[in-house]
């Protein structure tokens, strides 16, 4: 049986490119790894603060976060910050672009399968009760009301938002933009596998990235943009003795049962990569490949037996 697994890097032995330094900190429920030019170490503090701010606003695990307060007000229009409004606009946009495969309104489904606390707590004290009855309804994003003029948001009654991966991807993009604006030079930001790069590592044409496989890791290289992976390798837990994972299929409201280990997608931005990886995973290798091709995206499907299927534009390094 597949064992529970926490988020964060599981691959040891990452190398730091010559002339660069690595900074690691915890945020958004995972380890954030930052590669900076060795003479720009002072930029790490700014990135850490930036990602921390995204975390503080978008986390669902702090009842005082702006997102949690919005969730608590479901059914009533609520004025939100311009920041959160635009994140929610992006979330609905992503849902539309994937016909709801990416669904930011799956909070009740996640809670029903036990993911009602931060992941460390979930591993330390697994939920002992199984949910009764039908899974919570999904697709709440279709009834999400966003009034740009008033900057109000109204969640349908009973619906809750979980921005998890999208907020993390957008935070990574924001961090890269922050570094670009400061003329930082080459950099990479990796938030638990959602990563984006700026420029290229000194003397090299691309950034090498390890992707966890069922029996180890394989390496790909990314010349620009971002890469995100949706996988059952991480964020698994036990609920009353049954293994659950966080990739909810909005068509069922339950953990996806597609026979895949992971899908990694390269895109111009980490938010795009994150959303596309999730949608492609839920679609499976065949339909997922067509989905990626339709958007000009490149991806790697890893199957539980260790075999792989590529989609999109692959080049020899």
């Amino acid at each position: 049986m597949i064992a529970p697994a926490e988020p964060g890097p599981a691959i040891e032995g990452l190398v730091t490119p010559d002339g660069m330094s690595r900074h690691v900190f915890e945020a958004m429920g995972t380890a954030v790894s930052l590669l900076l030019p060795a003479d720009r170490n002072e930029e790490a503090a700014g990135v850490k603060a930036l990602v921390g701010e995204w975390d503080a606003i978008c986390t669902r695990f702090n009842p005082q976060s702006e997102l949690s307060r919005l969730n608590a007000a479901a059914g009533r229009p609520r004025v939100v910050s311009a920041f959160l409004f635009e994140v929610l606009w992006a979330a609905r946009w992503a849902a539309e672009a994937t016909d709801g495969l990416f669904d930011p309104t799956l909070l009740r489904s996640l809670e029903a399968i036990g993911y009602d606390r931060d992941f460390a707590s979930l591993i330390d004290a697994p939920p002992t009760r199984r949910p009764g009855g039908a899974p919570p309804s999904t697709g709440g994003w279709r009834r999400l009301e966003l009034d740009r003029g008033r900057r109000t948001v109204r969640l349908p009654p009973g619906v809750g938002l979980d921005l998890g991966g999208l907020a993390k991807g957008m935070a990574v993009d924001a961090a890269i933009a922050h570094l670009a604006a400061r003329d930082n030079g080459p950099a990479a930001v990796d938030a638990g596998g959602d990563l984006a790069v700026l420029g290229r590592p000194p003397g090299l044409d691309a950034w090498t990235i390890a992707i966890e496989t069922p029996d180890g890791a394989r390496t790909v290289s990314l010349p620009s943009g971002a890469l995100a992976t949706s996988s059952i390798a991480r964020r698994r837990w036990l609920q009353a003795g049954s293994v659950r994972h966080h990739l909810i299929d909005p068509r069922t409201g339950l953990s996806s049962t597609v026979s895949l280990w992971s899908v990694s997608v390269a895109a111009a931005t980490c938010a795009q990569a994150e959303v596309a990886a999730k949608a492609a995973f839920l679609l499976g290798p065949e339909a997922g490949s067509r989905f990626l091709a339709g958007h000009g995206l490149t991806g790697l499907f890893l199957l539980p037996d260790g075999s792989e299927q590529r989609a999109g534009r692959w080049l020899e390094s």
Partner: protein
Amino acid sequence: MAVLAFGAFFGLAAVNIVGVTAHDTGAGKQIAARPTATAAPTLAPGDFFGRPGDVVSANAPGAGQAGFPPVAQPPLLVGGGAPMLSSSGS
């Protein structure tokens, strides 16, 4: 203390993801920037994945706009040696 707005690419060209406040050391040198949430991400026109008119709904930013070139999505390269980063699934 200077407030720096900055842009990020999101789709075609999202801008102004968050405001950033740069601190002065007193010696006139800018050091680490501290972000603030006072400014918000602004999404670019076009499809979420950068292809205008592909799957854009009537309410999506940029709906109905034309003339934006598709975003150049990056390829992936096979292999590449010792890994610098890891993507094990979020």
